[in-house]
């Protein structure tokens, strides 16, 4: 068993390394990436279903540290980690297969696939880790790989910026993570998970640790103050988005909190904080998802909302129920979100754009894709036989069972979110599926910039014409001199993502017709979305649906869907158009969160400039002052030695005589 666990962690890393070495040979890179993912998936399956003990602890070799700290580098293998790693490996495999098609013309495919493998290694390490340090390792590796993946198309300034923003925001949140983990480790005297969970005493350290870890989780999972990096991360290729959003990076926070659940369950303050953040995020993100003009950004906001739902389960569930509800939503979400993203990628290739306005009605003529998207959206909305329904209702049920202020907040937010989720899913479906009227309502089309993307049929041919028209809006006109303005050299660059929201992000290197394997992958994910509830059943507390809650949520879903149906005139118009223009525009831009980030960045840059000035003029003053004084003294000394020879001789002899007199008198 330990062999399998180690292989699960090590193999993807090796695949990443090999892929990096072999990145020029496309076929080899693809073969390595896909076959290793498949193998790891099989290993994950074995780990999940193998009839083993409840938990199995293995070590990578404890660190030889002399002090009071033990770093055993344990790997903890149990049902939960088995199931999660199986699902992660499955999603990764799907993404790898899909990528072979999606990036078939991209010269950087090899490196992309290798990075995805490394990313998977990071996530699997986090999943298998029974040690805080290993968790942090996996956590940060994912952050770094997300930087590489989001910035994959580094020719585009928006992609560079988004990658930078994503890593920086999560890294700032990781300040809390590192401090929190250090505090927890100090409290236990060890970084072993079991020791941390069973340690007692040191309430301050516990509070700092739990809150710190929460801050870190909020960063990676996109809870409210840190949420804005996630929609921007859509600048990466769609498979990367699927990877980041479905099962790995943003969900890692949930898994981490679930692993530490026993600590959180007994600490009301940290749980309340988590509950408030999650509640705020899920409603806020769902509202924003409703008005988005870009399908990938819409999915990104829906991810924010769904991740908050998972975390809310952990914040509200009673201690005896365990983290099962959150994990179950994590797994369910992994299936349908991966499905939705891959479908969106497929659709964007067909439509040549990701803007909803450009994709209107393009779903209708496609067969499998239409079904897959439908299943995905339905699952997201929480339609009964699909996995989304079960996992979501499990969360609601867990929240209802909880006590305290946190669960109340969470329950209210959950019910609101259920309705909002159904609404935006319906809207998306209607927009994508309803065939266009003969005269498209361009005048009232969403947002001012949407007019640029002409939703006329045959836009696959039109999109190359659109892209250059849109790109000047993104990057300033090239200047003749090669010197970058100082503003660009500094950390912060002007916010351009908001203007970018409407720009198509489709990859020029993806227009070939879909291959069978890629289509098959999407279909398999769709099937799994239907049946995945069976997987969840093996999880303790994984599926727990009360009749009342199911009824309430069904009513909410149906009501919201019907409302959208009516308000959107059966899909012939966009519901979001009913929102006043300026307000909607602001909502599309995320209500200026980006501006706030830029403001913070500017403040830090200003501080940095101050530091450089101080370094040059104040701290450096003392050596320079010393130099000036020394030089002046030297000059004075030199001048005094340029005297008339006979005078100098007089002085010299006078001195000699004086010294001699002193010597003689002393000798006496």
């Amino acid at each position, binding site marked *: 068993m330990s062999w399998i666990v180690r292989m699960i962690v090590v193999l993807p890393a090796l695949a990443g390394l090999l892929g990096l070495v072999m990145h020029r040979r496309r076929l080899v890179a693809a073969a390595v990436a896909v076959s290793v993912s498949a193998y790891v998936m099989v290993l994950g399956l074995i780990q999940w279903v193998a009839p083993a003990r409840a938990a199995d602890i293995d070590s990578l070799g404890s660190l030889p540290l002399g002090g009071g700290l033990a770093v055993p580098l344990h790997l903890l293998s149990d049902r939960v980690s088995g199931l999660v790693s199986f699902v992660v490996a499955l999603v990764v495999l799907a993404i790898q297969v899909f990528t072979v098609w999606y990036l078939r013309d991209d010269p950087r495919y090899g490196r992309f696939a290798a990075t995805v493998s490394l990313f998977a290694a990071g996530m699997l390490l986090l999943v298998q880790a029974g040690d805080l340090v290993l968790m942090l390792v996996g956590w940060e590796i994912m952050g770094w790989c997300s930087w590489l993946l989001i910035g994959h198309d580094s020719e585009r300034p928006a992609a560079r910026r988004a990658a930078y923003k994503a890593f920086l925001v999560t890294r700032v949140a990781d300040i809390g993570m590192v401090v929190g983990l250090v505090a927890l480790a100090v409290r236990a005297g060890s970084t072993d998970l079991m020791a941390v969970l069973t340690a007692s005493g040191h309430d301050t350290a516990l509070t700092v640790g739990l809150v710190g870890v929460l801050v870190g989780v909020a960063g990676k999972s996109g809870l409210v103050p840190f949420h804005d990096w996630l929609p921007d991360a859509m600048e990466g290729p769609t498979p990367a988005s699927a990877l980041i959003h479905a099962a790995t990076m943003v969900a890692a926070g949930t898994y981490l909190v679930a692993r530490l659940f026993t600590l959180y369950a007994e600490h009301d303050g940290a749980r309340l904080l988590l509950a408030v953040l999650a509640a705020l995020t899920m409603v806020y993100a769902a509202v924003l998802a409703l008005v988005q003009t870009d399908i990938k950004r819409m999915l990104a906001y829906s991810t924010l909302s769904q991740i908050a739902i998972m975390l809310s389960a952990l914040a509200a569930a009673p201690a005896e129920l365990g983290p099962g509800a959150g994990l179950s939503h994590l797994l369910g979400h992994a299936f349908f979100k991966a499905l939705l993203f891959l479908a969106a990628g497929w659709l964007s290739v067909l439509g040549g754009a990701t803007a909803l306005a450009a994709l209107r009605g393009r779903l209708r003529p496609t067969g499998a894709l239409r079904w897959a998207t439908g299943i995905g959206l339905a699952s997201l909305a929480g339609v009964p036989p699909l996995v989304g329904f079960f996992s979501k209702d499990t969360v609601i049920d867990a929240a209802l069972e909880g006590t305290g202020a946190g669960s109340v907040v969470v329950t209210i937010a959950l019910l609101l979110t259920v309705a909002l989720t159904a609404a935006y899913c319906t809207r998306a479906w209607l927009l994508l599926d309803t065939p266009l009227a003969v005269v498209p309502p361009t005048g009232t089309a969403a947002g001012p910039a949407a007019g640029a993307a002409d939703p006329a049929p045959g836009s696959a041919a039109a999109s190359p014409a659109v892209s250059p028209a849109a790109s000047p809006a993104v990057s300033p006109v090239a200047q003749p001199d090669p010197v970058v303005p100082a503003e660009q050299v500094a950390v912060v660059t002007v916010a351009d993502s908001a203007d970018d929201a409407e720009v198509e992000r489709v990859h020029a290197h993806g227009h070939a017709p879909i291959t069978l394997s890629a289509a098959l992958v999407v279909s398999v994910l769709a099937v799994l979305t239907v049946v995945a509830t069976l997987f969840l059943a093996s999880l303790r507390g994984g599926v727990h649906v009360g009749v009342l809650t199911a009824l309430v949520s069904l009513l909410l879903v149906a009501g919201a869907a019907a409302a959208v149906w009516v308000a959107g005139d059966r899909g012939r118009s966009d519901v979001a158009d009913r929102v006043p223009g300026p307000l909607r525009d602001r909502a599309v831009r995320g209500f200026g969160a980006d501006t706030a980030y830029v403001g913070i960045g500017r403040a830090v840059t200003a501080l940095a400039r101050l530091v450089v000035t101080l370094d040059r003029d104040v701290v450096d003053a003392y050596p320079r002052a010393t130099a000036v004084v020394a030089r002046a003294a030297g000059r004075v000394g030199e001048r005094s030695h340029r005297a008339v020879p*006979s*005078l100098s001789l*007089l002085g010299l*002899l*006078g001195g000699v*005589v004086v010294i*001699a*007199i002193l010597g*003689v008198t002393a000798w006496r």
Partner: protein
Amino acid sequence: MTTRDIVFVAVGVVTALSALLSVTTKHVVHAALWLLVSLGSLAGAYLVLGQELVGLVQLLVYVGAIVVLVLFALMLTRAPIGPHAEIDTPWWQRAAGAVLGAATTALLASLLLPLLSGATVDLDAPAATTPRIAQAVFGTWVWPFELLSVLLLVALVGAFAVSRLVLHREDPAADGAVRRAEGVRR
């Protein structure tokens, strides 16, 4: 007060007086000549002290060579003939010099006189000092002696080289321009 004492005092007075004159006279050349007298009478003092050889060498080297050299130097440097007020430093510096000289004398006297007071030496017994000195020079002191000859040689060559030395001075302006041009090239 023995005879030798008296003779020494006489010679010593001549020595000291001529030395004093040699440093105070206003004639440049007279200074050299008074030095001649002083060194010569010092040779006499050596004789009185019973060191014939030293006295002889003193006469030969100092009186015969060095003073002549000094005279040559004076001529080569176009020393003025006749009394000349400007060979001396300003009065205050001379006063300071006098004080310092007196202080030196006082210092040395205060050291030497107690040390040597009462010490007498009998020089009347005939003693062949020269052979002893010859033996010492070529026996005990032979290595320093050889070194000394090398030193003399080096000094001669050095003096020759120094007098041939040409202090090289180009036109400063042109030099600077060249250097600046080089700086630009660098």
